[in-house]
Structure formats: C-alpha cells, structure tokens
C-alpha cells in the first residue's frame, strides 16, 4: 500500500513512505473543495474588460476601505500575537485557579455566530455599555469607530495564535529552561534565547492566519464599525454593496483583489516560517 518509490530515494527526506497516496488525497480534496470553486471567480470575470476591472478596484471609496481593513487587521493581529504568546505561556507553564476554565474559553469566539459576537461587542463597547462607559469618561469612543473594528477583529482572532503556540510549548521540555536557569541565565534571556526561537514559526503562523481572517471578517465587524464611507467602511462591506446592486462583476473584481492579497500574504509567511525552521534545525 505504501511502496517505496525509487524516484523518491534521491533525497534523504523521502525514506518515509506514503508520498503518492497522501499527496494524491491532499491535492484532490484541495482541488474539489477550494481550487475549482475559486476558479469560478475568474470565470465570472472573463466577461469584464481590464479597464473596468481596474476602475472598480481603484475607485476612491474602495481604496479607502482597503486602508481601513488592512490597518485594523494588522493592529488586531499584532495584539493577538502578543497576547497569544502570553496566554499560551501562562496556560502551559503555570498552575493557577481557573486555568482550565480560561483554557477552555479560547475557542468560543468561533462557536458564536459572528453576528451575535458583533452585537454583543457593540453593546459592551458603546458609550452606554459596561466597558464603553468607562472609556467614554476619558473621551474615547470605541463602538462605531476604527477602534471598535480593531476590537471585533481581536475577538475573532484570539484562538489562532494561542492554539498554534500551545502544542509547541507543551512539547518543549521545561527542563531546558530549568537547565538554563541553573546555569544562571536570566528569565527574560531564557525566554528570548531558548523559548522564543522555538515558538516563532508557530507564532508567525498564528499571526498570519489571524491577520488574514481579520481582513475577510464581515459579520461581526459591520455591527461595530459605523460603516461611514471613507472612515469606517471595510472591504467586505463594499463587496456586499456591489452585490446589493446585483453587480456580480464588480463584486468578484474586489473579491479577486482580496484573494490575491491573502495569497501573497500567506505565501510570504509560509516562506518565512520554512526559513526559520531551517535555521532552527541547523
């Protein structure tokens, strides 16, 4: 069932059997579920001229939404990366009351329908809400501003970084850290020299996924965003606007921009991650 292929002996990595089968299944499923459906975006666009395409994607209002979506998603992903490392660390290394409860909560943003998440966050952070009220006193508005968009994006991105790092930290033997400590290294030094390089690839993965997910997020963000053109409109909303006018060509044009951007972003991160892995393993 898993024949060793002569061809694959050339490289040392391919001693392990199963290349053909696993590659075959991977590519088949990927094509059926992701690639072929995505190609229909191109098919739909085949009736559009390049000039039209360009006009739609460089429209002033649309460009303004790229800016909002990208900057908010980037901030949210950075916050998620920082707190993701922190959370993964305390959840794997420390014992404290409610640790299990906190650990169990991490995936909940996924299970909550995005609209519900959006509505609750908006309520919570509006100037009448529990948290928004506190910020309102110092003159900061959260709901219906870009800050609100960032908050919603942080919410939906929480699980990515934590859950990417956690398994790596769990596998990482605390004995290394203890050994380093005995040898007199400072705690922060241990973290940056011993732990950080190990979790960096996973952090990058989590960061990239959270970033990508935040750019595309629609359901929760529209409630908290305010949606004022040029100020708090996100790109997925513009796509919805085009669809509302039954303009499939314009909607798919902008969709294509988002797909290509996401691909480039994720490709870059994967490349970086592979490079780091190589360095880490010498």
């Amino acid at each position, binding site marked *: 069932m898993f024949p060793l292929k002569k061809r694959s002996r050339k490289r040392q990595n391919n001693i392990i059997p199963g290349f053909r089968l696993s590659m075959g299944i991977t590519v088949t499923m990927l094509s059926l579920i992701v690639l072929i459906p995505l190609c229909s975006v191109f098919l739909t666009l085949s009736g559009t001229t390049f000039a039209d395409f360009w006009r739609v994607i460089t429209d002033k209002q649309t460009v303004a939404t790229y800016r909002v979506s990208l900057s908010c998603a980037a901030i949210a992903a950075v916050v998620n990366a920082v707190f993701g490392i922190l959370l993964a660390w305390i959840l794997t290394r420390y014992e404290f009351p409610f640790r299990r409860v906190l650990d169990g909560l991490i995936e909940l943003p996924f299970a909550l329908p995005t609209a519900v998440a959006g509505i609750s966050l*908006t309520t919570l952070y509006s100037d009448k809400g529990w948290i928004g009220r506190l910020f309102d006193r110092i003159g900061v508005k959260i709901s*219906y501003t870009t800050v609100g968009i960032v908050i919603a994006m942080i919410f939906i991105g929480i699980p990515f970084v934590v859950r990417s790092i956690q398994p790596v930290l769990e596998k990482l033997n605390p004995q290394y850290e203890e050994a380093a400590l005995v040898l007199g290294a400072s705690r922060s030094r241990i973290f940056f020299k011993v732990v950080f390089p190990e979790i960096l690839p996973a952090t990058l993965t989590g960061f990239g996924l959270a970033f990508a997910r935040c750019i595309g997020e629609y359901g929760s963000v529209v409630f908290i965003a305010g*949606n004022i053109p040029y100020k708090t409109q996100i790109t997925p909303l513009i796509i919805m606007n085009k669809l509302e006018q039954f303009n499939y060509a314009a909607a798919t044009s902008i969709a294509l921009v988002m797909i290509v951007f996401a691909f480039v972003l994720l490709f870059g991160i994967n490349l970086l991650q592979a490079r780091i892995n190589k360095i880490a393993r010498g």
Partner: protein
Amino acid sequence: MKHIFSFRKTLALAIALATIAGTLSGCAGNNSPAASSVNSSASAASSAKPVAISNVSYDPTRELYEQYNKLFQEYWEKEKGQKVEITQSHGGSGKQARSVLEGNEADVVTLALEGDVDELRKGGLIEDGWVNEFPKNSAPYTSTIVFLVRKGNPKNLKDWDDLVKPGVEVITPDPKSSGGARWNFLAAWAYADKKFGGDEAKDQEFLKSLYANVTVLDSGARGATTTFVENGQGDVLLAWENEAFLSQKEHPDDFEIITPSLSILAQPSVAVVDANAKKHGTEEVSKAYLEYLYSDDAQRLEGKNYYRPSNPDILKEFGDTFNLNIEMVNIDDDFGGWEKAAGKFFADGAIFDQIYKK
C-alpha cells in the same frame, strides 16, 4: 503504549458523539430532501394531493405570514379540498432576491422593493408585466418612512428640517447595502424637492447636511434599529413605519413615533415566480396565495401587523394606529419609477456617492 490505548478511548468517545449527532440530525437530513422533492412531485397537483409552495420574503414579515399562511391554508382547503404546505424564507430583501436568482426555487416572492422583484424579471424568472398582475401595483400592503425618537422627544424633532440642524444625531442604514433604506433617502429627497421647488442642487445640499448628521450607517435596517434602541446611539431613527411599531411594541415606554409632514409610500411588492411555479406545477395555488392577500380578512391581518392595508376602507378601520393625514409621494409619479431612481441616486458614483465625496 498505555496512553495510545486511552487515546483510542477518546477516539471511541468522539465517534460515539458524532454518531449521536448524526442520528439526531438524521431526522433533519431526511426531512430536507423529502420536503424539497415534494415540490417536484406535486407537479401533477390534483385537488386531492397536498401541494407545497415556498414563499421567499424579507425580514420583518415573519409574524404576518405565519398568521396569513394559516388563514390561506384554511381557505384553500375549503375551496379546493387540498392541503397546502408553505415554507417561509426570510432575510434582507436584496439578498433574498439574489438567492432566488441564483437558484433558490421560490414559487412566490414577497419582497421590500419593486426593484428587487424586477431583477427576477430581468433574470428571466418572472414574466413581463408582473407589476399589473395583482391590484395596486402588486402591493397588497404598504408602509411609509417615519421618525422613531426617544420618549418625550427631547430634541423636539417634528419634520425633516429638524434633522439637518447641527447637533442632531441621525441613525439610518446605508442605502447602498440595504435596499429598504433607499426609501429613507428618497423620502428626504422628496421633502427637499418640495421645499426648494425642484432645485436639485439645493436638494443635494440638504441631503448632504442630513447625512453629515448620520453617526452610524448600519448595513441593514435591523442593525440600525439595534444601534438606536439597544445601544442608545443617536436622537432619531429613520425607519419603516411597521418596524418602528415593532420597536415600540418591544419597549413601550421608551420611544415615540413622529410622522413628518411629507413622506413616501413604500410599496413592498409580491409576485409569482413564473418559471419556478411552472416547474413545480404550482401556478394556480401560487396565484391564489397572493390574490388572497387582498381579501378583507387578510387585509385586516396586515393592519394588525402594522402594515397599511391597500384597501382604503379597511385602512380607515386602523385610523387609531396610523396617521392617515400624512402627505405621501410615490416612486412612479415623483421619481419616474424604481429603475430610474436607482440609477440616479444609488448607482456607483451617483448622487448618494457624491454627497459623501470630500
């Protein structure tokens, strides 16, 4: 090896769970194909066999149609001795129209905008001239745009002029993403047009200052209501009359409805989706389903659900609920029809986009 063994237990547990989930949903799974095949198997609709139709509608009509469907089922059984099963679907009007266009096989549509139904005609699903298939432009019930303000009307907002004053915060959905919100824009425009005697440059200025007061431009009508009602944003919500009544019903002590001096007649349109009804063999019952919306009983039901009945005599019965003295423009006479209005105001780069341009 021990831990592998116990992980196997976990796996067994997971499989058991999945099986339970599967069995539970088995009922649902069985239902859905069976139910959808009823549509096709009913093609030879004899009077004895039950018939199934689906009504794709927009958001706040659920209660209305839940009651109306019962009424119609009784009526149809009495008339024809045939049982009729009706499946409802609700969502944003434009989105619902799109789903029918994309293959959701509705027998009838009951949507918020004539324009949404007309897209189905353009897509070849509905025959030309559908607007005149039923009385009153195929709008059995109507509504209008009103102001929902906080109890006591603290900012004393009486008419459209008050909304452009500095310091007034207005909540209304985005007409680009919410078809229903286009009526809000058009009502304001009609008022300005009357005030400035048809000077469109001034109309546009008026709308610009109105939308400058809009602090949150939600993507849908319901979102805007939540923003205003639950989150306490803004001083006034521009809303469909029936939706304003629904909000008031939920919070009787918190809000008031103000009718401006001039508003617009919002006409939700109904139509038989000819291609689908033909395919399912449900043309007769679908047509009767919509026709019966004009019967006296149904008209009263619509009035009770805060829609204005199109039958003037029955509308009068609801004189306590609705302000019947409001002056109303309508889309055909004052804006030259839906298509023209959509092109002039809401297309990309048209007037609505211009008022937001810096």
